[in-house]
C-alpha cells in the first residue's frame, strides 16, 4: 500500500458533513466551466443567488471604501487630486496606523490597534453609550474564523461529554461543517415558522434538555437578524434568551452580521449587548457574550476581502489571552480587510466631500433590499406550492416549497435531497442557482434566496423561478436527470 488512503484521513475531517448547499455548489461549478469552454448551453447568462454575496450578483461596492483602499495600496495616489480630499486624508491616517506605513506588513494577531479602537467607538455609538473597549475586540479573517476560534476553545470531551452548541434550525449554511470540523455536536432548536421564524424559549429549553445526556451543551448560537430567515428579535425576545443563558450557564454567541440591513417598517436593530446592559446588574456583570460582525454585511458586502470581528463581553481575561494565541496561527487578518472594517464602521460624516455619495449609495442599497424583499415576497406567495414568511431584515428570503410527489420519489431514487434535485433542475432549465434550505419538520423543504441583487436581476430571477416552478407543477415528471 503506497498511498495515504482515506482510512488515514482525520476522522473529524471525514465527518464534516457537506451541506446540501455545497453539494449543489460542486454541480454549479461544473456547469460554469462548461459555459466558459463554449459548450452549447442555454443562451441566458447564469444567475447565482445561492449565497450571501451581493457583489457577485452585481451590487456595487461603496466608492469611499474602494477609493481609500486604492490609495492605501498605491500611495502615489495620495497626490491624485481627482480623488476626494477626505479619501486621501483617511488613507494617510490608515497608512500611519500600519507598521512601516504599508498594508503589506503583518499586524498584531488581534488586529491593528487603530481599527480595534474604531470598532469600539462604533459599538459605543451604536449602543448609545454602553462602554466598549478595544481590548475586547478581536479582528479575524471573517466572522466565521472568529466563531471557529471560540468554538475550538469550547470544544473537548468524548461521547456524552462532547461539547454541544445549540444552533437554530434553519441555520446559516456554513455553520454545521464548522461545528463538525471543531468536533462539537450541533443541537438544533427549531425557529417557529408560524411566527415568522421567531426564537421560542420553550423550544430552547426542549433542545437543551434533549441535549443533556447526549453531550455537554456549553453555548448557544443565534443570528440576529436571522440568517436565512430574516427574523428580527425584539427586546423581549433578546431578554428571554439572556435570562435563559444565565440560568443554564451557557456562552452566548450572537451573529449580528446583518445588523445594518433591517428594513421592516417600525423595526430597529438592537444589539444583544445593549439589551444586556439594560438588564439587572447581576446579568450585566456575568453573562458571557460574544458578538460577531463582518464586512460581509449588507451595505458594504466586501465578502472577498475576508475580515470580521468579535466583541467579547464578560469573558475571562485568561481565556481572552488564548483567543489571541489562537488567532496567531492565522498570523493576522488581511490588512485590506482590516482597513475596510475601519471604513465601514467610521464612514464619511456630514460636511466631508464624500458624504453625499456615501449616503446616496447606502440609501440605494437599503431601498433596493426593501423593495426586492417586498416584490419577491408577493410573487413567491402567489406561486402555487410556495409560501414565504416576510423578512424584517437580512439579505435572504426563505420560502417553503411543497414539492410534487414525483420530485420526491425521483430524488430518493437518485440519492439526493428533494430540494437539491429541484435546484439542480432549476439550474439546468433556467440557468438560475438558488440556495437549498434545511429540511424542516414534517419533511418540508425550503429555498434560500439572496435578494440583495440589482432590481433588474431580481426581476429576471423571479421570472425564471416562477416559470420553472409553474412548469413543474403542471407537468408529469418522466425524465432522468
Amino acid at each position, binding site marked *: 500500500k503506497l498511498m495515504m488512503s482515506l482510512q488515514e*484521513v482525520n*476522522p473529524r475531517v471525514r465527518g464534516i458533513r457537506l451541506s446540501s448547499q455545497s453539494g449543489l455548489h460542486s454541480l454549479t461549478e461544473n456547469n460554469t466551466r462548461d459555459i466558459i469552454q463554449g459548450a452549447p448551453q442555454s443562451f441566458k447568462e447564469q444567475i447565482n443567488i445561492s449565497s450571501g454575496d451581493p*457583489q457577485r450578483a452585481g451590487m456595487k461596492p461603496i466608492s469611499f471604501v474602494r477609493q481609500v483602499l486604492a490609495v492605501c*495600496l498605491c500611495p502615489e495616489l495620495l497626490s491624485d487630486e481627482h480623488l476626494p480630499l477626505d479619501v486621501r486624508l483617511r488613507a494617510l491616517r490608515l497608512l500611519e496606523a500600519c507598521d512601516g506605513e504599508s498594508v503589506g506588513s503583518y499586524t498584531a494577531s488581534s488586529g491593528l490597534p487603530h481599527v480595534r479602537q474604531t470598532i469600539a467607538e462604533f459599538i459605543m455609538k451604536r449602543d448609545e453609550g454602553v462602554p466598549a473597549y478595544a481590548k475586547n475586540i478581536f479582528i479575524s479573517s471573517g466572522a466565521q474564523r472568529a466563531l471557529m476560534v471560540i468554538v475550538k476553545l469550547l470544544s473537548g470531551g468524548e461521547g456524552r461529554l462532547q461539547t454541544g452548541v445549540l444552533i437554530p434550525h434553519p441555520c446559516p449554511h456554513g455553520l454545521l*461543517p464548522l461545528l463538525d470540523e471543531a468536533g462539537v455536536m450541533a443541537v438544533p432548536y427549531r425557529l417557529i415558522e408560524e411566527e415568522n421564524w421567531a426564537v421560542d424559549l420553550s423550544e430552547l429549553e426542549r433542545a437543551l434538555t434533549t441535549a443533556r445526556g447526549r453531550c455537554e451543551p456549553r453555548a448557544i448560537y443565534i443570528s440576529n437578524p436571522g440568517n436565512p430567515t430574516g427574523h428580527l428579535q425584539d427586546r423581549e425576545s433578546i431578554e428571554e434568551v439572556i435570562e435563559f443563558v444565565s440560568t443554564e450557564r451557557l456562552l452566548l454567541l450572537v451573529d449580528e452580521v446583518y445588523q445594518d440591513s433591517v428594513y421592516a417598517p417600525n423595526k430597529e436593530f438592537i444589539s444583544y449587548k445593549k439589551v444586556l446592559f439594560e438588564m439587572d446588574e447581576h446579568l450585566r456583570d456575568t453573562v458571557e457574550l460574544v458578538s460577531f460582525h463582518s464586512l460581509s454585511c449588507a451595505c458594504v*458586502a466586501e465578502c472577498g476581502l475576508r475580515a470580521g470581528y468579535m466583541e467579547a463581553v464578560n469573558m475571562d481575561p485568561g481565556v481572552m489571552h488564548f483567543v489571541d494565541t489562537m488567532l496567531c496561527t492565522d498570523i493576522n487578518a488581511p490588512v*485590506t480587510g482590516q482597513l475596510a472594517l475601519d471604513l465601514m464602521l467610521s464612514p464619511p460624516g456630514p460636511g466631508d466631500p464624500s458624504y453625499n455619495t456615501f449616503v446616496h449609495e447606502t440609501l440605494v442599497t437599503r431601498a433596493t433590499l426593501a423593495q426586492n424583499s417586498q416584490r419577491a415576497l408577493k410573487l413567491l406567495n402567489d406561486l402555487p406550492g410556495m409560501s414565504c414568511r416576510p423578512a424584517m431584515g437580512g439579505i435572504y428570503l426563505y420560502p417553503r416549497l411543497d414539492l410534487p410527489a414525483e420530485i420526491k420519489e425521483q430524488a430518493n431514487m437518485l440519492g439526493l435531497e428533494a430540494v437539491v434535485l429541484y435546484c439542480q433542475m432549476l439550474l439546468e432549465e433556467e440557468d438560475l442557482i438558488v440556495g437549498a434550505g434545511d429540511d424542516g419538520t414534517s419533511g418540508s423543504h425550503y429555498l434560500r434566496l439572496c435578494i440583495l441583487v440589482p432590481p433588474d436581476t431580481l426581476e429576471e430571477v423571479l421570472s425564471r423561478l416562477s416559470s420553472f416552478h409553474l412548469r413543474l407543477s403542471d407537468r408529469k415528471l418522466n425524465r432522468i436527470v
Partner: protein
Amino acid sequence: MSQEAVNGVPCRGKVLTVENMNPNVKRVEYAVRGPIVQRAVQIEKELREGVKKPFTEVIKANIGDAQAMGQRPITFFRQVLALCSYPELLEDNKFPEDAKQRARRILDACGGHSIGAYSASQGIECIRQDVARYIEKRDGGISSSPDNIYLSTGASDAIVTILKLLVCGEGRDRTGVMISIPQYPLYSAALADLAAVQINYYLDEDNCWSLNVAELKRALNEAKQHCKPRVLCIINPGNPTGQVQSRQCIEDVIRFAKEEHLFLMADEVYQDNVYAEGCKFHSFKKVLFEMGPEYSSTVEMASFHSTSKCYMGECGFRGGYMEVINMDPEVKAQLTKLVSVRLCPPVPGQALLDLVVNPPQPDEPSYTSFMKERTAVLAALAEKARLTEEIFNTVPGITCNPVQGAMYTFPRITLPPKAIDKAKAEGKVPDMFYCMKLLEEEGICLVPGSGFGQKDGTFHFRMTILPPTEKLKVVLQKIRDFHLRFTNEFS
C-alpha cells in the same frame, strides 16, 4: 475561581475558563509573538508616553516582516491591486498598460467583476492556472495541474490544513509529524492544537545546519515506539536557520520518505531568498520528478509558497498556495471539502499571487522598473546576510553559520554559568533571560532560540536581517557590545 459578590451572594465562576476550555489550546504557543514581543510593545508604549530609556526606539528584529522594516513594495503589484480595488482608475493614464491589462483580467475572473465577491474555495480558477504555469516554468517543464493547486490564506493556512487532514489514530497509532529542530513555531503550535505527536529531528549546526538522513532515521525509529509517523516536514530555505539544502540532500529526503511511507510537506516560501555562492534553490517537486517514475508516481507531497517573503514581502495580504502531488483521489476530495468550510482565501491576496506568478515580461512596459526593484531587494538582503555573518563571528561567544538563504540568522550564544543560574532563579529559560535583558538595555527585540527548539545545553537567538543596512550595522554593533557586557557581568 468563584468570587463573592459585594452583597455577600456567592457568584458562580465563569462559564468559560482556562481550566474548563479545550486542553489542547493551552499547549499552543507561538514564540514569534510570545512574551518578548508583548514586552517590546509595552516598551514602545512607554517610549511614546515619554518614559526615559537608554534607546529611542524598539527595533523589532523578531518577525520576518520586510515592509515593517522599511522595504518598499513592488510598484507594479500595488498599481494592479489599486486598479482592481477601484476600477475607475483604469481610465487614469498614470497607470501603465500592462498593469491595466492584468487588472482587467483578474476582475473578469472575479464574481460580479469585483474583488469583493467570494471566490471558489480552492481559489479563482484562472489564477490557479497561472500558478500551475509558473511552477512548470520554474521546474523546467515538469507538468503541473491547476486541479492540484489550492490557493490559501498565506502558506500557514495551507500547512495547517494539510496537518489537520493527516492527523488520525489513537494512542500508539496517533499520527507523528517529523519537524526539523530548530523549527518555525507555527508547526509545533498546529501540532499541539491538533494533539498530533511532534517528532523532532535535529539539523546539524556544525555543518551549516544541514539535514542528514541518519538523524532522520534515528528520530523516526525512536518515534515508532510511541506513535505512527506519517508526515515529514522540511523548510527549504530554512527558517530560522537559513540553510539551503543541496540537491543531494533533497534526493536523500525523498528516498527516505518513500522508504518510510511518509507524506512530505515542503515549505518553500523562501524560494527566491538564496544568497550564498554555490547555493541554489531546488524545488522538491522538480527533484522528485527527475528521480524517475519510481519516485515521481509514488511519493506523496505538498509544497507551499506565499506572497509574504521572497522579494515581495507582502505579509499583510495573506496570499499563498499549495500544490499537492500524488494524492489519493479520495483523500483529495476530503481536502477539497475541508477547504470549503473556510469559504475562500482573501481575493486581494489571490490577485497579488497572480502577479507574483505572472510578473512583467521583457516585452512589457513595466519590465525594466520591475526587474530593477526586484534585483535591488534581493541584493540588499544578500549583502545584509553576509554582513550579519561577518560581524557576529567577530564576537567571542557568538558563532554564526552562514546565512545561505531566507531572512534570519540563528547564531549560537555562549552563556556564562552564572547567567544560566540567574535565569533559572528568575524562572526564565536562559536565552529568554538574555533576550529580555537585551530588549530592556538596547531596545532590540529578538526571539530566543528556545522558541524554535535547540539541542539541550545550547542557546541561540533568531534575528531577522531585514532592518535597513545602516540600521542593521548599528543593531549588530549593539548586540556585540551587549554580549560582551553580559559575559562580563556574569563572569
